[in-house]
């Protein structure tokens, strides 16, 4: 198995006349944190949606772990090890934190056409879910209904749910969006703890977070990748400074 876990090959997607994704090529290496940055409307969420399966690309290929997944539906990609978090928090709001994580564990534990045993008493679902919550320091919230939690806590739980699907690659769509400063710090800590253990493709506006977390960065402007490199290289890249960071 190669050290490239995700290969985005000439991906293109248009909405009417707008090229939201314009022949994008990105390689995400195994266990690296790869960030995609770009100004508003650069097509970052469009790109992530094509990777997770929510949107169909017009052309190009997505190769995940050597397999062409361009045409696979969302849930099949998930079973192959591709997990995403949403830009707008997406959890089962009426259920507890533990329920949410346990449902993700359950999704990996064979089919769920099991109609008889009460699922909330099953150790094989509850124990791994609890462990994930402990690792994320969320175990004290286990029995709280998600709708009663703060925005920052919900974002943390989204990561926990994504991790519970045992992904090989995490797609994170603006995990810091809408967070206060202290919440952002704890999210950066959470993601830092994953660096080197999980492959992460991160779309984020918060530049401090991106430069703190990313091993490599790709810059997306008007649907096109204008540069890819280490944080240092991106900082020094003239095109990037011009197009995006504002000539600082």
């Amino acid at each position, binding site marked *: 198995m190669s050290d490239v876990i995700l290969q985005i090959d000439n991906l293109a997607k248009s909405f009417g006349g707008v090229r939201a994704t314009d022949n994008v090529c990105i390689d995400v290496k195994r266990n690296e944190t790869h960030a995609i940055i770009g100004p508003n409307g650069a097509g970052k969420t469009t790109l992530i949606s094509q990777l997770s399966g929510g949107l169909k690309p017009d052309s190009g290929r997505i190769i995940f772990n050597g397999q062409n997944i361009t045409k696979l539906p969302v849930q099949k990609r*998930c079973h192959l090890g591709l997990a995403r978090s949403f830009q707008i928090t997406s959890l089962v709001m009426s259920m507890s934190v533990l329920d949410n994580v346990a449902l*993700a564990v359950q999704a*990996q534990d064979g089919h769920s056409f099991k*109609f008889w045993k*009460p699922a909330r008493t099953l150790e094989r679902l509850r124990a791994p879910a609890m462990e994930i919550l402990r690792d994320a320091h969320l175990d004290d919230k286990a029995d709280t209904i998600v709708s009663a939690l703060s925005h920052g806590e919900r974002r943390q739980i989204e990561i926990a749910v994504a991790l519970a699907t045992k992904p090989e690659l995490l797609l994170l769509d603006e995990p810091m969006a809408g967070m206060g400063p202290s919440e952002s710090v704890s999210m950066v800590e959470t993601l830092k703890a994953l660096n080197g253990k999980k492959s992460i493709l991160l779309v984020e506006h918060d530049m401090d977070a991106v430069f703190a977390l990313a091993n490599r960065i790709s810059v997306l402007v008007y649907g096109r990748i204008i540069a890819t490199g280490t944080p240092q290289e991106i900082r020094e890249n003239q095109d990037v400074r011009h197009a995006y960071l504002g000539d600082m």
Partner: protein
Amino acid sequence: MGVFLKNRALTFIVLGLLGTVPLMMYWSGSDYLSLATKLVCFAIAATSLNLILGYGGMVSFGHAVFFGIGAYAVGIPSYHAVYGELDFIASSNGFFHIVLAVILSALFALITGAISLRTRGIHFIMITLAFSQMMFYFLLALDTYGGDDGLTIDERSQIPFISLDNPVHMFLLSFIILLGCLYLVNRIVNSRFGLVLQGAKDNEERMAAIGYNTFAYRLTAYVISGAMCGLAGALFANSESFIFPELIDWTRSGELIFMVILGGGGTTIGPVIGAAVFVVLEKVLSGFTIYWHLPFGIMLILAVLFGRTGIARWFERQKRPGQSNE
């Protein structure tokens, strides 16, 4: 988490009253037993709808179609058992009737569900309505079985050791089946399957993103629900010994939705309470005036306006986080 754990007091009180009061009234001379049996049949139908509506978020506006299929699955074989022809389905065997009712409703649910569950919201409501109206007009056109005049069942389902001509037997059989259905739905909604169903009601996108094929789970719930409603129809046909296409009419489906919402969707006992309030209110008000629909409608509107989450939840002290209600 055991079955009947939370809110179980209310559940036991309601079921205890429902299981004893009609019998005591019957034995003391006032006969409301067939009304009680009708109530129990609607309670089973509402319980089946609760599985997909209350727990699954699928607003089926054609659920009465399964009730009607179940009723005709008793009426048609019974008709041929008495008057001949169509020997291959002519039978007055109760087990045959029940199996036929359940299989035909499940099959109809599988076919129509596979199509209608590809839609959401108002489109799902309209398409389930359309399927049930199709069946309604089909039955209207069946002159052999009375068309819009309906069909009198001359011989009820034959079941060993009990006689459905005896109103006490009829009531007890229906009541025991209601208990079985409540228990079954309760097991289902707390199982792995049930949690997936409830998760998909709340956030389908999320459930797909963590790897669930929500369509397959919804369709399965729809088939179980349809089969259960067919069983209710088979009991109803025996109790009333008269069946008619209006059993399937969309107003019936609306009434079933009403029972679930009024009693409390997503609770075990809610649909039973809803069915009871509905049937009793209808009976009482129609005794006062022939214009009973007006006060009936007003009372139902008030009940929904001021008890939005359903009667079964009035008695809850506090909703426990993340647990489905009993």
